[in-house]
């Protein structure tokens, strides 16, 4: 959940959750990853990209591990993001507030202060 309103890519992040920057439609509530709540086409990257749509000379070598995810707004169908993932890899968060991350067990700032030697500083 973002404490303040901000726009990352085609998505607005705010205290009440995420919405499509194009149409304003709600994508998810606070503390949720918007990518898990939109229209998604996800599958093998080479299969998707080598269909000829992108041109005859466009090609991606086949690899069973690489997936392409196309994420669309469920309201206006704008293309929000196109991302690569490994097969079965969960969607990445574009943004988490420090509080949300902490609630989910990730607190790098505290980790740093507790064990500075594990970090490279300059």
């Amino acid at each position, binding site marked *: 959940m973002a404490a303040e309103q901000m726009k990352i890519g085609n998505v607005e992040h705010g205290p009440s959750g995420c919405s499509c920057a194009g149409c304003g439609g709600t994508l998810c509530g606070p503390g949720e990853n918007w990518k898990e709540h939109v229209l998604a086409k996800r599958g093998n990257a080479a299969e998707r990209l080598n269909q*000829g749509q992108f041109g005859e000379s466009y090609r991606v070598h086949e690899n069973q591990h690489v997936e392409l995810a196309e994420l669309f707004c469920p309201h206006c169908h704008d293309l929000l993001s196109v991302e690569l993932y490994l097969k079965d890899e969960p969607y990445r968060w574009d*943004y988490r507030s420090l509080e949300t991350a902490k609630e989910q067990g990730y607190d790098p700032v505290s980790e740093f202060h507790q064990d500075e030697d594990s970090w*490279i500083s300059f």
Partner: protein
Amino acid sequence: MTELTQADPAATAASDKAADGASRFDAVALQVVHSRLETLMRLMTRTLEQLAGTAVGREAGDYSTAFMDADGRIVAFGSAVITHLGHEVQIIPWIYEHYGRDSIKPGDVFISNDPYTGGSVHSSDVGCTAPVFAEGTLVGWVFCDMHFADVGGMVPGSFSPSAGDCFAEAVRFPPTRIYAGGEYLEDVVRAFVNNTRIPTQIARDISAEVGASHLGVRAVAELAEQYGAAELGHIIAGLRELSEEMFRARLRKIPDGVYESADYIEDGYASDRVYRALVQMTVSGDELYFDFRGSSEAAPALLNCARSGLVGGVMGPLIQQLATGIPFNSGVMRPLHVRSEPGSFIDAAFPTPIGLATGYGAWAVSDAAWGAASAALEASGDEYLRGRSSAQAGGGAHCSIFSGASNQFGEYSIFLNMDGPGGQGLAALEGLDGARGSNVSLWGSIPSVEAHESHEPFLYLSRELWRDSAGAGRWRGGAGLKSAVVVWGEKTSDQSGTFCSVRNAVPTVGRNGGYPASGVYYGPIAGTGVGEGLEHGTLETCSEIQQRYGASFESLPSKAMWEGERYLHRGPAAEVFIQTTPGGGGFGDALKRDPQAIAKDVEEGIVSSAAAASVYGVVVDELGAIDEDATAARRKALREERIHPSNPAPVPVNQGENDGC
């Protein structure tokens, strides 16, 4: 040239006053010293270019220069490879730890290329560093670093996909004196050069670095004499403090939070495994954390990087995106903290192979951090910072290394084709098609065809823009290149090779709805008759050859070794070797691209009319005019396909623009 007050006037105004309102720094002195050091970096760079032994140093831009203070902290950094900062921040502490600070004398020069002792990111980058003394005091170090075309190891060119450890990859020198108190240590240089396959060129490369170092030592010493050693130290401290304060002010404009991104690198030799560089970038007030835990374990081959590559990879987005416009020095690094999983492929443990660390492991670090930084900069809402977000530029090293018993001069040769790192498509960003280069290099430089042909046993049939290679988007990426070469020269023997590339199965990604660029491909085409045609003065381009003989194209895997088993031949039966470089990623939804811009892309040969219709939904007739009704219908159909993915819009038929491969 960066001006000290250019980027963040408010931050600068705040920083040049102490708490009691008194000026802490002499602003004029800071600007003069900063400018002179930046100029020195350019002069050292120019020296490398003028004196280097191969086209890699002369024209490919694979080098860097730096000036560090007496403690080894970066004061000035010169073009072009940002990744080199990863070992430049480590080398002086290593020298002090192992040789003792008191052992350093005027006239010392150290050579180094060992990634595990702070001497390099990969062993092919060989550095020279020399202390600067003034008034009997050590005031700092000059450093330069350049890619050498061969540093020994099991294959010519020193990139071996099958090397199981760093011992098999290259000769590795920790920081080692080649001058001691001004005395040239010929034995040591000979020991290094003796371990390479092209000793004459490598000796020239070393001479170039020694020349650049001597120039740097003299220039900094003059600066110290002008200001006095103590005052110069004070000014340098001021520069560092100023940059730190400016960067901390910059970070405070970015919302606190965790920004996540990843990049992937395929092996393609030992297996089809794909390695992930995962980063969580945290901004908390004016502190910045890059956490790469969760990245893949080390690979069995050359795509790993040691800690020098991890640090060097992070420096890319620091310079190019987050701290852009702020004079770069160690002050900018002060708020930065980096963590990883030791033993992972981006923080590999000795003696894991790291032969192409700069082009793969460290590049993946940089591209992963680029994505996180782009999200954070967009979140800032600051117009200047939002403009630093972009898709990914065509990245990774794409190296074809040919070698043979004889070149056109009758000499053994190694041809390291560095067209890849400099010939990649630029990234799209909001408002601009393909306009931003990679985080890895401050500029992409590609040797001219003539530079290649005058020294290397190959003839370029053509080098051209690669149609449909760019990532689609509202703003499209820059196009990649494709080229076709044949073995050439009366005295030239058949040429064998080693090939290393990435972005084959993992294409260059777009941003904010932009699509990836095409993956790269390369390989030989046999039976073209091109060799015979050349003997009669006929020259065909890469596209023409692909159209006519595409069915014979042998697409090689992302890594391949021919050594001793296979060759490219010259003469009437010559094979044509095709090589491509990746385009840049697209930015934004392709269906929102201005149709007029697409018509221009089609006219200029960057996008085919088929792809214009099938990706962008813009129908362009044979005369280049936009069919507005057909375009509206096409875009509507493509948009509806998004809702009904099981009913895809038909792909337009090929309109005779097939490149054949």
